[in-house]
């Protein structure tokens, strides 16, 4: 397929009709949480969009992020978006191996200097760590990352490991794992956190880039607001039970059977920003809370070290909304400082954490 083809031309070449294209645009708008009234604009932009080169780097990861994308529910839509990019390097998906694979990466970097996207999944042993913890073709993850992003248009960190360090960075962080945004300071970065991230969030960002030629609006942790703009709690269908003070106290009590709020079973929904409640998983079948399990908060920084998955969320007495917003704003301004600020805040507050009861919390609300 010619790289100069527009997306509309590419779709037509695949036998997609005009109505199929409009459907693609409707699904894309839904994916990106854009109002359906924008569908004509999306159609117009995608008609003329040209496929960008994408280099996908996998470091300290479990391949769950790639699995999330390639096993995602709507193969037609996801496939079309994936087809709409030129995926020039991806360990798991590429046919080439060894020197040929690395040559493909370097070739894509040369041919598309200044215009290609770099997708990263997995955390990276930092420059001060033993490079032997994770290498590709004999080169450290850090060296490959820095070489590849040098002429990139933007970097998309996919999954909590790439966005915030994830499991490799959990205490005691034996490999000196770091997040992409701690190492890359001079490129636009999007974090699509989650363990794994919602596949629609990955393709949504790619679709947004295809449509508008730029990255979407981000929150203080550099996550796309379309998917991370609201908390799980605010979008949870069990929220009315929380508001009425009806909680499951164990996984098999009457409250659990009645589908009451899982707050007291450790649900991190109130402090977690993600789109599980609206996008759901497995073809929109369900999501963890609907399956009866509390949210783990997997899209938030340092969620592995947040004090236990089954402990109820507590509100540290020394943290207030202004402080959190301030930390977020500082992170947005300082870029790589975001995760560091969050880590320090988390560590500091863990030492001062005092559980509160639901009644106390509701009084504060």
């Amino acid at each position: 397929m010619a790289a100069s083809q527009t997306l509309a031309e590419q779709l037509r070449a695949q036998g997609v009709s005009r109505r199929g294209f409009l459907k693609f645009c409707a699904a894309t708008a839904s994916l990106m949480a854009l109002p359906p009234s924008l569908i004509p604009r999306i159609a117009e932009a995608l008609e003329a969009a040209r496929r960008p080169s994408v280099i996908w780097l996998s470091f300290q990861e479990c391949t769950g992020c790639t699995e999330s994308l390639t096993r995602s529910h709507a193969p037609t839509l996801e496939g079309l978006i994936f087809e709409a990019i030129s995926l020039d390097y991806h360990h798991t998906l590429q046919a080439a191996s060894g020197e040929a694979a690395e040559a493909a990466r370097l070739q894509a970097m040369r041919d598309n200097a200044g215009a290609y996207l770099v997708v990263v999944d997995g955390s990276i042993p930092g420059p001060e760590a033993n490079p032997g913890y994770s290498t590709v073709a004999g080169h450290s993850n850090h060296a490959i990352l820095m070489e590849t992003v040098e002429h990139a248009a933007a970097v998309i960190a996919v999954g909590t490991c790439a966005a915030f360090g994830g499991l490799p960075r959990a205490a005691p962080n034996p490999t000196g794992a770091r997040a992409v945004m701690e190492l890359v300071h001079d490129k636009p970065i999007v974090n699509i956190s989650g363990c794994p991230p919602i596949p629609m969030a990955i393709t949504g960002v790619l679709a947004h880039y295809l449509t508008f030629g730029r990255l979407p609006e981000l929150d203080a942790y550099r996550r796309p607001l379309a998917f991370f703009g609201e908390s799980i709690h605010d979008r949870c269908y069990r929220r009315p039970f929380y508001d009425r003070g009806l909680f499951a106290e164990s996984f098999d009590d009457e409250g659990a059977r009645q589908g009451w709020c899982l707050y007291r079973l450790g649900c991190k929904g109130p402090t977690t920003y993600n789109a599980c409640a609206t996008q759901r998983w497995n073809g929109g079948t369900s999501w963890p809370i609907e399956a009866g399990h509390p949210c783990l908060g997997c899209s938030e920084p340092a969620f592995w070290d947040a004090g236990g998955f089954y402990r109820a969320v507590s509100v540290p007495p020394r943290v207030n909304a202004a402080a959190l917003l301030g930390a977020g704003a500082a992170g947005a301004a300082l870029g790589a400082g975001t995760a560091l600020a969050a880590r320090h805040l988390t560590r500091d507050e863990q030492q001062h954490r005092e559980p509160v009861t639901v009644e106390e919390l509701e009084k504060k609300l």
Partner: protein
Amino acid sequence: MPTLESIAPAGDTDTDALPPLPGPLVPLLHEVRHALARLVADGGEHRIDLHALPLDATLIDQLLAFIGRGEVEARIEAMGPTRVHESAIAGVWVVDYRDADDQRLALHLEIATVPQILRTDRATLSAGLQRLDAGLAGAGDPSPPS
């Protein structure tokens, strides 16, 4: 997930028999009403993506039952099925976009005289004309169009 066909019988317009509306649907229906009034006034169209709203399957069923089914139904086969029907409220269409596995991609309420996906665009019309001409020529039409 129930099919749209199972929600309410075609032509169900008996508003007296409707159940009370759940709270979350009231503002949504006011948005529909506002859009319909605009369509009447100046032809402006509007769409609402129900799939992107925090409505569970029960609420969506209740909404679709409330607006009922009208006279028009269509099914489009393009990248999987898309099912369209006009609700019992004229000008309010339900457009259910599905992928090839019949998984829902988007569920729109489209407030328009005709949903966009049913219209034929100019480029497709031209292609249709060319195809007809080619068919006539291929069939030995003695007076081919100029």
